[in-house]
């Protein structure tokens, strides 16, 4: 994968990440964990959208499935939280493949809108099975992790999943993904089994979103409720992937930081203030960023590299 940066910078990032919890207040550590959570989700979505060219505006639904898996397993069986995350990964992998199957028939904007429908429908389901899934009053895990645990879990998972993604994308599977994105017809002509790789991409990205969802619920004090998984979450993931751009680790970090931190920061902006700031500032920022760097952060990095004469 082109975007694996120099080992030196990776070590530096690792060192900073390891040091942060000792330097920041608990609140800021929680925010840093939030960035880690979105890193995982954006990474997964990047695999689907960036590498196989399938658009999904429904990954908030997979986050919801992952999050509720953790919450329910913990509430009912007091399952170890890490085990619940693995369960979320597995369950979302299955659901992702299931969604990927009918998605084979759809392309481009139709796929986008079908996944949008998913984003809207899935959060409704806890209202139906409210005894099991808590309805609007939500589901609470039995144990609530500390800020530091959350931070460690989020960034450890990020590291593991990043390496996993790198391994997948550098090999045969990755080449197949890229072939699918660049030209489905050429891919098929070259013997790439379209359905297999397209559904695989869906499954993997959904599994990533599932883990992100687990951590997301744990970050919400272990509380899972429909109000957390609205349409805006799926839109934010897409925004994060677009801001990240394609082909750069730093891009994914930038995208994750953008959607993880900016809404919170927006609500404390002076002048517009807490009463109105969030949507106005965040929305304007999204528009501006896309106008200025349409290819995302990765595009910016590529341009800078070119300018630096690399």
């Amino acid at each position, binding site marked *: 994968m082109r975007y694996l940066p120099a080992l030196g910078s990776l070590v530096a990032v690792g060192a900073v990440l390891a040091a942060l919890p000792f330097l920041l207040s608990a609140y800021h550590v929680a925010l840093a964990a939030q960035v880690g959570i979105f890193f995982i989700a954006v990474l997964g979505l990047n695999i689907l959208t960036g590498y196989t060219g399938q658009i999904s505006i429904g990954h908030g639904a997979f986050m919801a499935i992952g999050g509720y898996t953790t919450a329910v397993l913990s509430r009912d069986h007091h399952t170890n939280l890490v085990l619940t995350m693995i369960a979320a990964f597995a369950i979302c992998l299955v659901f992702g493949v299931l969604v990927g199957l009918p998605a084979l028939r759809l392309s481009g904007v139709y796929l986008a809108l079908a996944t949008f429908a998913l984003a809207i429908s899935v959060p*409704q389901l806890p209202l139906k099975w409210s005894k099991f899934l808590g309805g*609007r009053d*939500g589901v609470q895990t039995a144990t609530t992790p500390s800020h530091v645990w959350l931070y460690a879990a989020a960034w450890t998972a990020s590291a593991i999943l990043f390496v996993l993604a790198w391994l997948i994308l550098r090999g045969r599977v990755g080449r197949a993904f890229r072939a699918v994105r660049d030209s489905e017809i050429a891919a098929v002509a070259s013997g790439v089994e379209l359905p297999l790789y397209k559904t695989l991409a869906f499954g993997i990205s959904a599994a990533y979103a599932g883990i992100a969802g687990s951590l997301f619920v744990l*970050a*919400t*004090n272990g*509380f899972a409720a429909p109000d957390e998984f609205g349409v805006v979450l799926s839109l934010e993931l897409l925004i994060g992937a677009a801001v990240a751009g394609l082909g750069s680790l730093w891009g994914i970090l930038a995208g994750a930081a953008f959607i993880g931190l900016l809404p919170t920061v927006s*609500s404390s902006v002076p002048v517009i203030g807490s009463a*109105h700031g*969030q949507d106005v500032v965040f929305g304007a920022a999204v528009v501006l960023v896309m106008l200025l760097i349409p290819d995302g952060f990765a595009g910016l990095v590529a341009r800078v590299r070119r300018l630096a004469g690399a």
Partner: protein
Amino acid sequence: MAVNRRKLGALLCALLITAAVAGAAAASHTGTPGVTSNKIVIGGTFPLTGPASLYKTIPAAEQAYYAYVNAKGGVFHRKIVDNVLDDQYDPSQTVPQTQKLVEQDHVFAVVGSLGTAPILSTWNYLNKLKIPQVLVATGDAFWGNCVHHACQGGTKPWTLGWQPDYPGEAKLYAKYILQKNKNAKIGVIYQNDAYGKNYLAGLKTGLGSSANQIVDAESYNLGDSAQVIAAHVVALRAHGADTFVIFATPTATIQSLVARTLIGWSPLTLVNNVSANRVFELLAAQNGANLDGIISTVYTASSTTQPNLPGMKLATSIIHKYAPSLDQSLAQGDGNIIYGLAVGWTFVDALQHAGKNLTRAGLMQALRNMKETKNPFIYPGMTVETSKKRTFPMEQLKLIKWSGGKTGDWHAFGKIFSGLH
């Protein structure tokens, strides 16, 4: 070139780390958090933007009340600073915003936060840290039921509600219906979530053995169109209901009332008090709803039907001075403004009872032993009371009936009902 860049990078890192450490160090406090010799810092999370932002007048009114108190010198010479933060009614935002209040702003207490799911997402955290989470703006029964009994992992003694709870309110409606018509055939429209279902459960409890007189209960989703809501109303009539109970949020209530008139149906109609804000009813009437005779309840005083009460005069002057943008709404009878002022009054009263030596435990002690009879903003004659046995501060309601059509208002009748539990 590369060497310089690396050096620069290292320098920047060092600066960043130093700044972070310095910031962390400066944040440490001694003594009761949020209390200094001249300030009390509190905070709360509210939907200031997003789909529930219609309720942002509540924190605005609370802040206006604190401004009024501050102008008179504050409480024991301490001015109240209220940090209101936006959570868009989304628990995943309530949690970081609450953490911010606790860990950045070092608030003394979290006061007035709005929304059941938002509160549920933070009550474990706040109770574990022994931080008061009080006077929350939701009528769920959790806040009274979980003080001595464990809910979701333990008792929640640091969480306190304020307003009369929804199931209690619904029980009163059941009593009233049976009183008016022993053989009433009841049709209910309710929001398909915990909010609506809690009301419905309360109604059934109140009806007791007559619960089978509910001929049909139609649930609708938040966001359903007025036409779908109208279809539910039609279904209720088709089931033969002669009594219509609406347990809905304001938009759907307005739409149900309009639909009821449009199909030419005039059953005895009851509306929950969250949606009985005069402003909403006027809107329904302007759209053709015939409101005369509909029933609800109230627990705050009315700026429109009781303008001469000292409390209402005070309300008008406070809002005019400290939140003039709310003047017009108050004049129209927006009950949420009175609600905010009333909650502010309760909090300040508790601060005064907690004494000069202010601690969190002292505040909770005051709030759990209230006998507030002089709150000028609640309905005259009602009290806000708590004790070891009584964990719901307000357990009284007064029935109100609408009269006067399109320019009418709610008029209270009958006695004050007490002991909703």
